[in-house]
């Protein structure tokens, strides 16, 4: 590639030809890998130019990732703005403790990654490999917790979209059908509050838990309860008066007006707090949080739980996919590190992989409060 014919205007050959020539003749700068390193591509003049270009390319790519996730954040904002009560309720399905552990793991893995880049800069191959392995482990831990969380969703049938168990009227999925005795027996495992206040009890043989058509069911907190103290606000666009409802309900005993009759609820909620307020059994919460139960949702909102779950699965799913890709990058970097390809003169792939991992971490930092810490 060394085409160093001097040009007719007597200018020096374009920069970089010198470096190429040195390589051909076997000169170096004395450092061994510096003058014409194997990694210097033919269209770059100097390693510095190549490194700088690679960094610019990587930062540009990170910008595209930010734009892509940005779309999801916008969707989140719109959906949450349009369905605030749904978000207040549905996010209880997530355990913030797992989310916090995830956050800590990713932050720690970013730390180990940065340390790894530093190790590469200082020619510390062993340390670099160790740090890459730790970062990989962090990603693995993150995905493991994701698996635990998703499994919980699976168990609760909280899938995205039409498969979601709480989509009571959705497209052929008929959760209004009466459960068989066997299903009821199995349901002890499932702590979902299958509530649809419009359901009519079928045949009187049993009812779905807290099924009611009018008046109170087992729980006094159902949305369309008429003429009861506990009726939550009916106006759909009025801000949900959650706190005051909660205040009202503390100390109120649970009443089942059908107690002793054929329509008595067969399954009682597994968890109550002192005072007897029925809690949504997805995730027992104690203490002063505002509590929105499914039954407290204004009836149209009960069909809109997808507003939360769809965006939850899209955001965490896409993020999880990026974590997996990042883990693949770590493996590839580890393999290259074992081969001794990274040193103080050339550690670009480690640097770029680190940038990617930091972005994945940063995206999670935003996801965590938006999804887990809704108040």
């Amino acid at each position, binding site marked *: *590639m060394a*085409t160093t*014919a001097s*040009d*007719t*205007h007597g*200018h*020096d*050959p*374009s*920069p*970089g*030809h*010198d470096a190429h020539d040195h390589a051909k003749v076997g000169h170096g700068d004395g450092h061994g890998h510096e003058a014409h390193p194997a990694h210097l*591509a*033919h*269209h*770059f*003049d100097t390693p510095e*130019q190549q490194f700088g*270009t690679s960094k*610019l*390319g990587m930062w*540009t*790519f990170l*910008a*595209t*990732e930010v*734009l*892509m*996730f*940005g*779309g*999801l954040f*916008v*969707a989140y904002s*719109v*959906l949450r703005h*349009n*369905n605030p009560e*749904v978000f207040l309720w549905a996010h209880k399905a997530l355990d913030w403790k797992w989310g916090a552990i995830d956050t800590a793991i990713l932050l720690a893995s970013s730390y180990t990654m940065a340390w790894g880049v530093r190790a590469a800069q200082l020619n510390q191959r062993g340390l670099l490999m160790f740090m890459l392995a730790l970062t990989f482990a962090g990603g693995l831990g993150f995905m493991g917790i994701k698996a635990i969380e998703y499994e919980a969703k699976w168990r609760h049938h909280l*899938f*995205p*979209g*039409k*498969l979601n168990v709480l989509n009571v009227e*959705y*497209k052929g999925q008929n959760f209004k059908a009466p459960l068989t005795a066997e299903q009821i027996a199995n349901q002890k495992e499932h702590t979902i509050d299958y509530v649809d206040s419009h359901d009519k009890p079928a045949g009187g043989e049993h009812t779905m838990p807290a099924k009611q058509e009018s008046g109170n069911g087992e729980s006094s907190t159902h949305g369309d309860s008429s003429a009861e103290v506990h009726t939550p606000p009916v106006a759909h666009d009025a801000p949900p008066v959650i706190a005051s409802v909660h205040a009202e309900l503390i100390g109120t005993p649970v009443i089942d007006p059908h107690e002793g009759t054929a329509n008595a609820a067969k399954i009682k909620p597994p968890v109550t707090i002192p005072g007897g307020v029925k809690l949504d059994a997805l995730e027992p919460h104690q203490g002063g949080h505002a509590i929105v139960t499914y039954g407290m949702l204004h009836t149209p*909102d009960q*069909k*809109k*739980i*997808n*507003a*939360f779950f*769809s*965006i939850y*699965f*899209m955001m965490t799913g*896409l993020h999880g996919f990026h974590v997996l890709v990042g883990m693949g990058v770590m493996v590839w970097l580890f393999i290259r590190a074992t081969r001794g390809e990274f040193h103080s003169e050339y550690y670009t792939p480690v640097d770029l992989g680190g940038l990617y991992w930091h972005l994945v971490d940063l995206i999670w930092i935003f996801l965590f409060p938006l999804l887990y810490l809704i108040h």
Partner: protein
Amino acid sequence: MSSLAPDIQTMPTPLERPKHHYLNHNKSIASWLFTLDHKRIGLLYMVTVLAAFAIGGIFAILLRTELWAPGPLFSADKTKAWNLYNHFFTLHGAVMVFMFIIPAVPAILGNFVLPIMLGAKDVAFPRLNLLSFYIYVIGSCFLAYNLLSGVLYVIVGHPVLWGGYGLDTGWTFYTPYSTTASDSGVLLATLGAFILGFSSILTGLNFIATVHMLRPKGMTWFRMPLFIWATYATALIQVLATPVLAITLLLLVAERALRVGIFDPTIGGDPVLYQHFFWFYSHPAVYIMILPAFGVISELITTHSRRHIFGYHFIALSSIAIALLGFLVWGHHMFTSGQSPLANAIFSLITFSIAIPSAVKVFNWVATLWGSSIHLRTPMLYALFFIGLFTIGGLTGLHLGTLSTDIHLHDTYFVVAHFHYVMVGSMLFAFIGAIYHWFPKIFGRMCNDRVGQIGAVITFVGFNMTFLIQFVAGAEGMPRRYATYPDAFQIYHQISTIGAYIISLGMFITLYNWVVGLFWGPIAPANPWGGNTLEWHTASPPPYDNFSVSPEVGDPYEMQIWEPDPNGNGWVKNPEKAAAAAAASHGHGHGGAH
């Protein structure tokens, strides 16, 4: 010379093709399929992109033929004929937008010309460049296969041999039709478009890095050719806007496959949200389409009129301004969607402001031409047609950007005519002109100028016949995407259809001219037109690493250092003038030895 006579008629001294150039550097198939040479990648794109254009064009002819009369044509069964028509216009739109216009100038000419214009050996990331190409091929296969086999599906009534189900939603995939009601292959088509988006992103990324980091000493930002400014601005948009399309299409796929409900109001979502997402990408996308064309026109106008560009800084910065402002106006596609009047007003106002940098360009081009030595060669003809047609297209955009008139014109043929004036009348003309302009550099041969001029005029006539009348039809109320219409509109459609056939005649003439030129054209000199951008400082075709002698960086529009070759073979440098220009430009800090 301002006559229509073609330039190169006799060559007293026969030219010799350079012995070694990038085309014969290595002739194996593998060296082409796995090439890292930006020039070859540009050619690979050229083949596939032109094939996409052919497909999109055929379906344009088909849909215009259906519209010849109000009654059904391609099937006796009305429902089937209208369904077929839906597939036709969707296919035409999707193929043209995603597979032709967005890649065309950046991927073909940007890849080929930009590094050479920078005096570089290649783009910043050659392997990424090749990856972009293969992503384009894969995405195109998904999309084209689904769309084309879908047409068969509609005709036959069931999918044919692993065929797809086509697409009948229009290229815009609007919800809720695309997510719930359409029984066409929305998933496959969306995946195809999703994949194609990554090709666009990676190309843009490559160009940004190249322009920032691979400029030679002495080429500061304001000494770059305007084609590079335009391509850089395009790359900015590609990198920032296309990811939003990616997530939009991903959400669409999730909505359709899993019914996640983001766009479904009954379960908490919002269908207009889809439109916001979609147009947030697709409006900047139209600037991806037109900005490179602007860059091409700057080069064509200056070279073929032997003139320094008038208002270089304004044209350069107006490209950036259009790129940035283009992100703020997406709502003007949604004036009738029910968004708030305040939002409508803001989008309308900013839309008006985009007219300013666009007009700045047009005025500067006209000022460049004023009093210059215009050579009405084929590329120049296309450039001049561009200026006129873009003016019409841009001005009618103002009709659509005005809230009061848009209420009547939205979703009518007025919109169709407007965007065809900017996409075909402007962008396609610039693209064809660009191919003619750089043809000698790319292939080392000259096309027949006379045939080219005839093709240009025929295309121009056919284009205007097709689309000028559609402004009237739209203002009279003819809606777009309708397969049938009241009899009173038939004359408009018939004129349009005849015009469409004339356009296709012009396209065939152009293709014929290129093929003949490629195999039997006279050998091209290094600088057939007398331009001063760096690609003309190297042989035609260029050597494998672009320059056998490092080019000197000067003002890219200093035409005067070139004068006609006494042997009749293009233009050669006048050494004294070149030295004088070089000395003058060294005062700007050329830098010296590295």
